[in-house]
Every structure is written in C-alpha cells, then in structure tokens.
C-alpha cells in the first residue's frame, strides 16, 4: 500500500520557517503594535525622551525616526513601520511618531475584522476609500496662507516652527529657536530651499540661548601650523580664494626617483622643489587673495608665507563647509592655481575668527549672495546638543515645507478629530461592510489626540468625549478644537492658540500610515529562510578555505 502514497515534496530548504493564513496577519499586527508602543510616549508636547545605548554611544531622543532606527528592529513586518517613519522623515522631516502610531492603530482596528473572518482585501479597500475621503477633506479644511502679507506669513512660519519644537527638549526656548530657524530658512533661495545649505554647528558649553545664527558660513578653526597666529584674523570685504590643492613642500609625483650624476645638480633639484611651491604661493598672492581656504592641507611653509603677506589661510576645511562657503561667497573652488583668475574669488561682508566656548570659529558674515546660513548651537552636554540639533532639523524641515506648500492646519489632534467626525458621518451613508471599516478608520484617527492627552497625564476618556462633542456641534467654531495640555478644561481651539502645522505633514502621514497598514494586511504568508550556512559555520571554524599556514598573521 505504501508505494501508492504521495511522496513528500520538499519545496523549501530544511529549517525554513513558514507561517501563513489569518494567524500570520494577526501575529504581524501584534508585532507592529509592540514596536509602536515604544514610541508612543514620545508624542505631543508632554512626550518623553528615550535613552538608547548602542555600544559605547548613548542617544537621548524624542524623534520617532531616530528611536526606531536605533532599536534595530528585525521582525520583518515591524520593519515596515521603521521604513515609513524614515520615509516621513525624509519627505517632511517631522511627524514621524504620529505616522507610526497611526499605522499601528489602523492595524489594531483591523484586527477584529480579520479575526472575525472578513477578507483582508475588503479591509484594505475600505481603508483606501477612507483615506481618499480624508485627504480630500484635509485639503478643504486647510488654511491657505499664500495670500497673506509677508509679516503675517512670517508669523505663521514662526508658529509652525514652535509647534514642531513643542515636544522637544527645546520647548522652553521655542520662541528663541523658532526665530532662529525661520531666519535661517528665509536666507535660502526661496525656489530651491536646499536643506544642505543650512549648517548646524555644535559647540558644547554655554546656555542654549547663547546659540546664534550666522548669515553666512561658520566652521571650526582647522588644524594650523606655526605662524598661523601671526595672520590677520579680521577682514572686511575680503577676496576669498577657494582651493582643492595641497600647498606644501612635497614631492610632486609619488614614487618618482631622481638620479643625480653630479654633486652640483643636487642644489638644483632642491631649488626646483622650492620654486614649485613658491610659484604656487606667489600666484595666489599676486591675484590679490586675502583669505585662502583649501580642502587639502596647507603646510607650515605656506602658512608662514601667507602670514608674512597678511593673508589668512585655513587648510583641511571639510568638504561641506567649503561648498557652503562657495555658495555663500560666490567663489569657485579651484583645483590648480595655474591661471588663477581673480574672478573666481568670492567675497563676503566680514570675515572674523572668534572664540565660541572653548573653540575658535571662522565666521563669514554678510555674504553678498547669502543663500546659506549657519546655526551655532550651544548647550550643556554633548547628548543635549545632539538632540537639539535633531529638533532644529525637524523645525527647519517644517518651515521649509510650510514655505513651499503655504497651507496649514491646526495641530493638537484637532484635524484628526475633524476628519474622524467627517468619516463617521460619511460611513452612515454607506451600505455593506465598508461602513464598519470606514468607521474604524475614523476611530483609528483618534489615537493622536488620545495619546497626546495620555502623555500629558490628562484623563484621556474625558477629554475625548469633550472633543467629540465640540466637533459634533460642527461649524467653524468646533472644527479646530484639540487637546490643551495647559488649561484646566483640557480642550481648546488650537487654531487660535497657534498650534499650527503644515497640512503636508498630515497628508503624508495619513498616506504612508495607510499604505503601511494595507501592506501588512495583505501579507498572508511569511517564508523565513534560515541564516545561510556559511554565516554560522564560518565563525567558529575560522576560514576553512585557507590552508593551515594561513594562521600566521
């Protein structure tokens, strides 16, 4: 009888882990939830920070994307969350925590449907439909600021920056920093708004409010040779020569060899080498440069040569700083000094070397084509400054987006609640299963105000009821009610209390959260290959391919 049995078909390699079906979807949802729980407490102005130690490095952060990245998530479904947080970070720069939370909440709401046997595709369709409606409505709700007068617009930008900074360590100095951030973004070319042109430099020491904005470029004094201190440290309207050239007495070609037949020729070779470097220096001086910056080292000889001629020089300037100087001063980086043209020199209003904390900084101020700005951040501890830098980065991105998109909505959970109200209302007009699903989408949106309230130590159920009631009353007044973390009642009109966010942030967050939720819902099978054999076996045995004599180091 046995010969008639079906032979076992080995489809997958031994050790491969497969799981499928409904249970798999539920299990994925659980995993996602667990990850979202980690970042949950960072949301909102009363959000807390996480301290993550990876090796010797310690990071203290409130930024969702940073935390998820450092957690080193390996679960395949949960990784989707990390990816959407990252994409939100790249695209908008802020709102990473809310995106993650929203995705997790959408999945949580979908879980009962899956367990009850509704086909995942129906849930997905329902979510897509709800998203479409929500986006449409979001567009309708958002307030256009492009027609406002410049001062009003600036005011709006300040408000948006402050909202972004609310949840960060810098919350208490948000007025100060929002001013800094908006001024920095205003310096940029309004058509491109290249983020790379805003430099952030960290100097430990001092108080955070000692931070300042340089309308130009600032970088740390580079390594200098003897003679540097004799150079002038202040210029007005200098001519700045930017080089990618090593100015040092050295052999021109690697591995070249000279064969000298007569002792007299010896001096000639020596002189020739000196002549080479002097020629280069002479060209620079003759062209009238007053500041020489190079990406490559400027040696002691050149330093002293320039010092004698009242020229300032700095070698080993980091690439990004040099590029920023180029943009700011309108100069061009030269790779050779042959035929050096004074037209390639840049200029700025004022150059100065100043002491900032324990460091000396080179500042290029009042640049004519000031399309760049540098923020010098001060603060007590290294981690503090790093977190401040991340926060400022978020604020800069928000202001940039706001500048471009010109549309804002009110934060504090107000917009989510309004969308939720609308979707609930809409759901009543639908027949069939979609009704349930649109309803749960609406419910999932409430996670944002609820978490904000919870994190602030408020009674979230009470607050949610108050908010729902306000929104249900409808009209212009109820629309912008959100969570108020300061007042006694717990709710307020967040639009009039200036908690503003660019609508683009919300738009992107809704889209990517829904996409992520749909993606996870549509996975019904995971095939996990065992770790490749070589990886595991190589380690204990060393490298088997090699003959034993390879042991010698």
């Amino acid at each position, binding site marked *: 009888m046995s010969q008639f049995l079906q032979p076992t078909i080995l489809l997958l390699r031994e050790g491969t882990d497969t799981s499928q079906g409904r249970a798999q979807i539920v299990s994925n949802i*659980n*995993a996602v*939830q*667990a*990850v979202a729980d*980690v970042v949950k407490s960072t949301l909102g102005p*009363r959000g*807390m*920070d*996480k*301290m*993550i*130690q990876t090796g010797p490095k*310690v990071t*203290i952060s409130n930024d969702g994307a940073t935390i998820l990245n*450092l*957690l*080193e*998530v*390996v679960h395949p479904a949960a990784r989707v969350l990390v990816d959407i947080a990252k994409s939100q970070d790249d695209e908008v720069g802020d709102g990473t925590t809310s995106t993650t939370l929203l995705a997790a909440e959408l999945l949580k709401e979908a879980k009962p449907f899956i367990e009850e046997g509704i086909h995942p595709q129906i849930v997905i369709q329902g979510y897509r439909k709800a998203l479409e409606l929500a986006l449409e409505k979001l567009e309708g709700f958002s307030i256009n600021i492009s027609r406002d007068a410049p001062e009003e617009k600036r005011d709006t930008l300040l408000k948006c920056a402050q909202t972004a900074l609310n949840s960060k360590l810098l919350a*208490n100095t948000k007025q100060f920093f929002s001013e800094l951030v908006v001024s920095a973004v205003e310096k940029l070319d309004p058509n491109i708004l290249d983020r790379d042109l805003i430099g952030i430099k960290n100097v*430990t*020491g*001092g*108080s*955070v409010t000692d931070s300042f904005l340089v309308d130009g470029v600032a970088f740390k004094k580079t390594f200098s*040779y*003897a*003679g540097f*201190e*004799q150079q002038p440290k202040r210029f007005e309207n200098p001519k700045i020569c930017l080089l990618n050239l090593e100015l040092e007495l050295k*052999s*021109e070609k690697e*591995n*070249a*060899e*000279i*064969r*000298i*037949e*007569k*002792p007299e020729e010896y*001096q000639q070779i*020596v002189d*020739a*080498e*000196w002549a080479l470097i002097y020629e280069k220096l002479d060209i620079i001086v003759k062209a009238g440069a007053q500041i020489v910056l190079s990406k490559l080292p400027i040696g002691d*000889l050149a330093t*002293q*040569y320039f*010092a004698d001629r009242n020229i300032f020089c700095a070698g080993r300037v980091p690439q990004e700083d040099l590029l920023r100087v180029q943009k700011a001063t309108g100069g061009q980086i030269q790779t050779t000094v042959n035929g050096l043209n004074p037209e390639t020199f840049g200029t700025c209003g004022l150059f100065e070397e100043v*002491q900032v*904390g*324990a460091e000396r900084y080179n500042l290029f101020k009042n640049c004519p084509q000031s399309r760049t700005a540098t923020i010098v951040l001060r603060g*007590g*501890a*290294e*981690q503090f400054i790093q*977190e401040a830098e991340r926060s400022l980065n978020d604020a800069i991105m928000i202001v940039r987006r706001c500048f471009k998109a010109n549309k804002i909505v009110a934060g504090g959970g107000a917009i989510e609640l309004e969308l939720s109200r609308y979707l609930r209302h809409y759901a009543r007009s639908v027949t069939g299963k979609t009704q349930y699903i649109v309803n749960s989408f609406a419910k999932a949106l409430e996670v944002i105000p609820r978490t904000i309230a919870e994190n602030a*130590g408020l009674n979230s159920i009470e607050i949610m009821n108050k908010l729902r009631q306000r929104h249900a009353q409808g009209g212009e007044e109820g629309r912008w009610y959100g969570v108020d973390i300061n007042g006694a009642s717990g709710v307020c009109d967040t639009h009039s209390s200036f908690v503003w966010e660019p609508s683009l942030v919300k738009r992107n967050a809704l889209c990517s959260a829904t996409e992520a939720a749909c993606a996870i819902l549509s996975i019904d099978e995971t095939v996990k290959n065992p770790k490749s054999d070589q990886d595991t076996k190589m380690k204990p045995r060393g490298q088997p391919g090699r003959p034993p004599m390879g042991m010698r180091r």
Partner: protein
Amino acid sequence: MSLAFDDYGRPYIILRDQGSKKRMKGLEAYKSNILAAKAVANTLSSSLGPKGMDKMLVSPDGDVSVTNDGSIIVEKMEIQHPTAKLLVELSQSQDAEIGDGTTGVVVLAGKLLEQALTLLDKGNHPLKISDGFDRACDVAIKHLETISEEIDIQANEHEALIQAACTALGSKVVSKRKRELGKIAVTAVLDVADLARKDVNLDLIKIQTKTGGSVEDTRLISGILIDKDMSHPQMPKEVKEAKICLLTCPFEPPKPKTKHNINISSAEDYKKLYQQEQQYFVDMVKLVKDSGANIALCQWGFDDEANHLLLQNELPAVRWVSGTDVELIAMATGARIIPRFQEITPEKLGKAGSVKEVQFGTSNERMLVIENCQCTKAVTILIRGGSQMIVDEAKRSIHDAICVIRNLIKDNRIVYGGGSAELACAIQVLQYADEVSSVEQYAIRSFADALEGIPCCLADNCGLNPITSVAQAKSRQLQENNPRIGIDCMELGTTDMKEQRIYETLSSKKQQIQLATQVVKMILKIDDVIAPDDY
C-alpha cells in the same frame, strides 16, 4: 526585553539580540537615572568650598593625580553609566565656558535631582517638575542680576581682581599662597588682555611647570620660557639685546622631498660632495650671521658639524624648539618665521631684551628665558613645587584663577560667594513659589531647597553644623535684607561676604544654575532606557 507574545505564549523576536537587551520604563527608569547621577554628585560634594577635600585618582597606567578640580575628577573617574556621563559633560562644559565652578555645578545638579526624586515619589509628572525648575531658574537668574555689583577692576591696583582670584584659589591645595599666586595670575592676564575689546586670549599665557623648589618660588616671566638649553655647552649663557632668528629648517644640507639617489662613481666626486656639504654649513651660518642675528632658534635639530661651526662663529643656537613655542616667540618678539636660509633678512628678526639660560636647583636642568620682548604680548608663569602632583594641581588652580580674572574683565559684575548668592536666590524663589497657582509650585519650592543645598554642603565641608549655620544665615538675610550673608567657612568671625571679600563672577554663577537646570531637565525627560543587559 520581550515586547510581545503570540497566541501560544511564544515571544516574538522583534529587535536584534533581543534577549541581551534590557529595557527600563517609567518610574524605574527615572529612579535609576537619578540615582546614578546623584552618585557622581555625592563624590564631588566633599570637594566643594575652601575646606573641600582632594581626591586621589590613579589612572590605568598607574599615574597618580591629586586634585580638587571637579571637572578633572569626573573626567578621570572614567564613568560608564550614560546618565552619569551627562554630569561629566556638564562639568566639562562649565570648564570650557567659564573655567571655574566645575564642582559647584555638579553638586547643584545632584541636589536638584535629589529633590526631583522626592517629587516623583509623590506622583508629580516629571515634565511638570522640569517646567517648575525652569521657571525657578529664570527667577533665580534674574535675582542674581539684581544682587550683583559692578566692581571697578582698575581701582586700588586691581585689588578686586586679586580678591576674586584668591576666592578661586582658596579651595585648592595652594591656598596658603593664594595672595601671591593671585597677584601673579592678575598680572599675567592684564599683560595680555585687550582691555578695549574686553578680550583675553588665554593662549598667550603659557604655564610651565618644573618640579623642585616650593610653591613660593612660582613666578611670572614677562616673556617666554622654553624647556630647552643652548645647543653647545660652551655657548654664552646670556645674550643681551638679542636679535632672534627663528628657523623652521634644519642646519643640514637641504634634501629634496622627492626620493633621490646619489651615485658616486669616483673619489673625486666624493670629495666634491663632501666639500659641497661643508660649504652648506658655512653658508648657512654666514647667512644667519650676516643678517645681524645674534641668536638662532631652530625648530629642527642640527648636525654636530653645524653645532661646532656655530660655536666657532659665536652664534648661540637652540635646537628642537617645539612648533607652539616657535609661534609664541614669533608673536612676542615680532619675529617672522623663516622657512629657509636664503630668505633671512634683517627685518625678519625678532627682538628681545635678553635671552638667558637659567638653572634650577642642584639638578642639571636648564631653561631658556626670553625677556623684555619687543611686543610683550606673551607671558609665562613658571610654577614650582615639591612634587609633580603639587605642581600639576597648582597649574590647574592657576588656570582656574586666570579664567576667573578673564571673566571679570569681560563682565565686571560680581556676586558674593560663601553660599550667600545661592541663599539669596533660594529666598527669592521661595517667595515666587507662593505666587504660582499650578502644580509647578512644588517643583519651584524644591528648586529653592536645592539651592540651599550648596551653602549646606559648604558648611558641612568646613566642619560647621550645616543646618544651624544655614538657618542663621538665612534668617539674617531676611531680617537685614542683605544678600551678602553666607557661611563663614574660614571662621573669620563675620558672615558678611563683602567684608570677607569672597568674590565670584556673576557669569560663572549664572552659568552654573543654568547648566545644572538644563541637564536635570534632560534627565527628567527620559522615561525609557534601552541598553545592553550589562547596563
């Protein structure tokens, strides 16, 4: 740190190396962080004040250092705990910005955390606590500004500066000689200070140490001291009206940088080569001599041949002078650094009143003193002391004193020390607390308590009864409305710090309070710690 379980109770593997990671959340995280940071602060608290004790620290290499300087202690303790490290950085950032008060800032942060812990136990929201601290900090800073006094740094031969330096030196091992050292520090800073711009470049003050002698022998040299001697023992030990030639090329035949080979095929050629080399030396010495220089300082070494020739030509020379010294000498004497012999011209020489070789004690160690330089924009403080440890500690103390004086030149407002400023702020903050209606009130009150912790700690270190003396000082401040009443650490019979002349700079005190609050706020904001298991 298993985060989730599936329906069968099996944990998910969500994070890499999940098993070996540890996670602390909520109250547990706050407490662990606060306790770690407090431990650091407690270590330092016995070093605070004029009667503060020193710590002996042994490095992994067995080097021993004895110090009272907060930032050095925490740096050498090699702290691993991430939160405790924040306090280390706190101390260092005070050091970088102000240079003094590094112990006080850590102690204050520790006291604040201690208060925060009690508040947390009572169930306050950590961010409410940090909000309260922040508001209290603003009040304290404002009050500091109102009680600060402007001093005239010029009056009475810079008496005020000397007093401030003495306060900074008072807590150190050299406190016996604080007046002398204070004077030295003040003179040094004033020599290099640009009073019009209120700027002091500390790079221009060189602090040189030499073991031997006693701390009293410490002196200020209005010039530069380098730890080198003349290249040949028979060279003159002193050059008056020196014209210094600063060279960055060796007294050697020049070498091309390109790899080279000399092929000698005949004896004649060899002779020629030899002669040419000899000629180089002669030419070099001649070039230096012709320029009118009567002493040559060289960044590199030179051949014995050259040494001999230099002696014959009566040209004293010094070799292996370090790059930073070369730069300092150039600044002080107005010399230009000369990269090769062909470029020596009389204009490039630096001028100094005298270059002298001095010898210390019985040891055969000599140093060169370059004095009465053309532009005396650089000074050296030569520190002497019985042992390396004392010398090192004295160096750090003088550095602190110099920083204090620099800060006073920048901003001439002072507050009085001995804990009086903290007490005055505490009283003000307490008053403010009563005006606040929300929960922050408690945090603000605790902030005042933490500020009182500083005079308490001072009194404790001086062997006084902390509670009685602080209470007395506080009641007198209130009764007499005099913010200058502090702790009489030196037992001089008065608690008025103006009479005791304990001066501290306003900028240092402000910075201390601000930085400590900032770090405490940061620690209070962490509710979740994810770390490897051995954390």
